[in-house]
């Protein structure tokens, strides 16, 4: 899932304090699960904003709303939500960066009498797994050309600090990465896994230069499934 973290309150405050009607919109998918932008977090941020505004004697209204998925028109195309957005001077999206952008595009398409300003309430951090209650770790950077079949299901692009395809580097020590002693060396894990599978020979040939075009380096990526289009 996409993992995010709420932005510091002072940063959010500085984005919205010059407006008088604020709408905080949460997202019911990834960021709800990682407890950054779900219903509870919308309530918390809204409470904080109201407390802060009242303390500073500012007459600002803070409304709350949810969309099940801000990255999909279908889940935002609801009259109640659209109405709330219309009434607001500024919208804080508590979705990931995708949601913020998609909501911006969507509401500006639907609402034509004024431009809709949407600002991010979260820092979108990574695509990761939930390792334990309250613990998430990055697992994939979406390089567009998955190599996991060669590396025992452990991603060297994401989990090696140098994205080496022919690791481990000379900094690997006692299973840990040179960047710090808390981080596992991805290549150490890969070697152990491949040994267990009896497939260490898989990484003995040189892995050639990676084509980064399917990755972010080729500009925004796009998938079109013709079979799904009418």
């Amino acid at each position, binding site marked *: 899932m996409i993992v995010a973290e709420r932005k510091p*309150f*002072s940063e959010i405050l500085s984005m919205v304090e010059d407006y008088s009607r604020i709408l905080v919109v949460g997202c019911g998918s990834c960021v709800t699960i990682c407890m950054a932008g779900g219903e*509870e977090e919308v309530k*918390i941020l809204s*409470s*904080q904003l*109201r*407390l*802060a505004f009242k303390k*500073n004697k500012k007459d600002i209204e803070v409304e709350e709303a949810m969309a099940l998925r801000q990255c999909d028109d279908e889940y935002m195309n609801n009259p109640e939500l659209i109405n709330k957005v219309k009434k607001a001077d500024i919208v804080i999206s508590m979705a990931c960066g995708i949601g913020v952008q998609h909501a911006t595009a969507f509401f500006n398409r639907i609402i034509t009498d004024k431009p809709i300003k949407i600002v991010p309430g979260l820092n979108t951090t990574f695509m990761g797994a939930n390792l334990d209650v309250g613990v998430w770790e990055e697992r994939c950077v979406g390089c567009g050309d998955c190599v996991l079949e060669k590396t025992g299901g452990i991603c060297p692009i994401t989990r090696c600090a140098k994205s080496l395809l022919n690791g481990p580097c000379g900094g690997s020590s006692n299973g840990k990465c040179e960047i710090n002693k808390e981080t596992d060396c991805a290549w150490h894990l890969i070697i152990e896994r491949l040994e267990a599978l009896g497939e260490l020979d898989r990484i003995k040939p040189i892995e050639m230069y990676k084509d980064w075009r399917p990755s972010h380096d080729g500009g925004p990526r796009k998938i079109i499934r013709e079979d799904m289009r009418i």
Partner: protein
Amino acid sequence: MTEFEPKIIAFCCHYCALAAADVAGKTGLQFSPNIRIIRVLCTGKIEVPHLLKAFESGADGVVVISCKFGECYFKEGNFRAQKKVERAQSLLQEAGLKPERLLFDFVPGPGAKKFVDILNGMTERVRSLGPNPSVH
């Protein structure tokens, strides 16, 4: 000028704090009239938004009273409550409120004396902090 009378919300665990309140009532131990008690089945059920909402709704102070660690009827409810209170304290601070307005404490079983002391202590603490700046 009349002295400031703080409004305090006390989230009280049904199994200990409320029992303590009962004993206090029966034995004639008095606690300050500024307190409004909200009974919860377990303090672990309290969520951060509840705590913030209490301040938004006009409370000058909020206290969460649970069982002693290790004595929670639901095992770890009070540990959770403590963490949530800590989180809410830092959220309050970000919003410009003193985190001391929010307190976590516990009473042993029917510890009426301790219960009353917590409430009276909280009243004094909030009295000296003054009114909730986000309300008044």
